[in-house]
């Protein structure tokens, strides 16, 4: 978190430190003590105490008086709402995504890149019991998923190189295992218009993804679908579902005036 720009005169250190405390939380670790924040950020205990005090007053943290541990407060959820609700693409894409989700008996999602992960901004499920679908806001690895591969395959050579470098540093095992998939994804995108992932990320589940043509709201969006493997196997599902996802992407692009 301590990036080189932090020493810049333009940098508001107190603000950055406060945000870094909020970024210390991870799924599965819902509460942290001042000591944990200090260890993770390298900040002194008094600095941490001042920041947690302020963040609690502002609703970003909740303090449990019994344990003196902190949890994220509901104010953090308010940050995502204006972003999600102002995306022109979501209401346009949603009904079309629902139709496809029903037809293929799977989940269809729309996502964007967040640093070295992909994040969903909308999901349509055939059944609400399709529980394996990641939540809006959940980080999804790039190299192991069709959605991440589609983003990398569509990116400029420079962006792709830079991203792959960051992944190599932050997630060496993922990089080792899947680096070759990017070349395949580029070939697949060029020849078929979509990318696929054969049960790579989650067992018994295949993913297919299409990067949207052109940017919407300043963002490169990717459309994907996830389906449980069934009879006929991956090859047949790929033949059936891939082209339908490409058609869906075209319809969304058309509705948004991108083509």
């Amino acid at each position: 978190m301590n990036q080189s720009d932090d020493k810049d005169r333009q940098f508001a250190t107190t603000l950055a430190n406060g945000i870094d405390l909020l970024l210390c939380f991870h799924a599965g670790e819902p509460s942290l003590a001042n000591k944990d924040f200090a260890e993770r950020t390298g900040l002194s205990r008094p600095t941490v105490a001042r920041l947690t005090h302020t963040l609690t007053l502002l609703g970003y943290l909740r303090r449990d008086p019994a344990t003196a541990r902190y949890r994220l407060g509901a104010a953090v959820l308010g940050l995502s709402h204006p972003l999600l609700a102002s995306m022109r693409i979501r209401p346009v894409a949603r009904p079309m995504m629902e139709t496809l989700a029903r037809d293929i008996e799977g989940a269809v999602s729309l996502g964007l890149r967040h640093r070295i992960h992909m994040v969903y901004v909308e999901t349509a499920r055939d059944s609400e019991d399709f529980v394996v679908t990641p939540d809006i806001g959940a980080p999804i690895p790039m190299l192991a998923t069709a959605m991440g591969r589609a983003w990398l395959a569509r990116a400029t050579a420079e962006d792709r190189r830079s991203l792959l470098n960051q992944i190599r540093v932050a997630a060496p095992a993922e990089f080792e295992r899947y680096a070759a998939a990017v070349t395949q994804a580029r070939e697949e995108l060029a020849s078929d218009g979509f990318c696929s992932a054969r049960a790579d990320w989650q067992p018994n589940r295949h993913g297919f993804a299409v990067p949207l043509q052109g940017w919407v709201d300043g963002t490169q969006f990717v459309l994907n679908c996830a389906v449980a493997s069934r009879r006929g196997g991956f090859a047949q599902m790929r033949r059936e579902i891939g082209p339908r996802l490409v058609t869906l992407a075209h319809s969304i692009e058309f509705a948004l005036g991108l083509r």
Partner: protein
Amino acid sequence: MPARHPDPDFATTLQHGLQVLHCFTVGEPALGNKELAQRTGLSKATISRLTYTLAARGLVVFDAHLRRYRLGSTALTIGYPLMASLRIRQVARSRMKQLADEVGGSVSLGMRDRTRMVYVETSRGHDLSAWRPDIGAAIPMLPTAMGRSWLAQAPQALREEVLAQIEAAEPGQRRLYAAELVQAQADLKRKGFCISRGAWRSDVQAVGVPILIPQDGETLVLNCGVLTARLAPRQLEQRIGPRLVELARSVEADL
């Protein structure tokens, strides 16, 4: 320049930075430094330091085409660990969707953020584009069934504390809704749900039911809202309220 905060342990720069983030709304998703200075009352020099820092953390991005900032992808992911700790969302989701479809309304689950309720899960059973409750959306407490349910279930000391905060933020609210709050407490005790008839959105009526088992240390509330035009007389209190109570109890049984 706003006056210095009276609390010496309060990190004012942090507050200002977060205040900048709250300037971005659904109606105004892209803002320049000048507009942010106008909305916050902070100097342009201060704003440019804050936006620079927020951009370094991915909370805003500069849209070169519009020459304005937008919220960045960190705004989307920063709340995820909290969402992930609310397992009730997965437990309740399909039942919420079923009820939403059944009544042609919206069913949501909310958590208190100081003086308001924030949606942590929502299901729609209608296709009205003008009314799309969404995760992270905040609604006020006193005018809504969800907020009234929270206030009605809270122990008196905590209720008083929150009402005092509401009064400080919006003077007059407390007196305006005094009778409704008394009614909500009586309704919760007798029927297990609270009601709001168009006090927040004039075209929507809603019922709320508190979840009795604390989640991540908080009492969450379920609500079900239906457009007034789609409601039969007395349908809200005779059918939908009891259905929502039933849903809440069935979810609690599986937590």
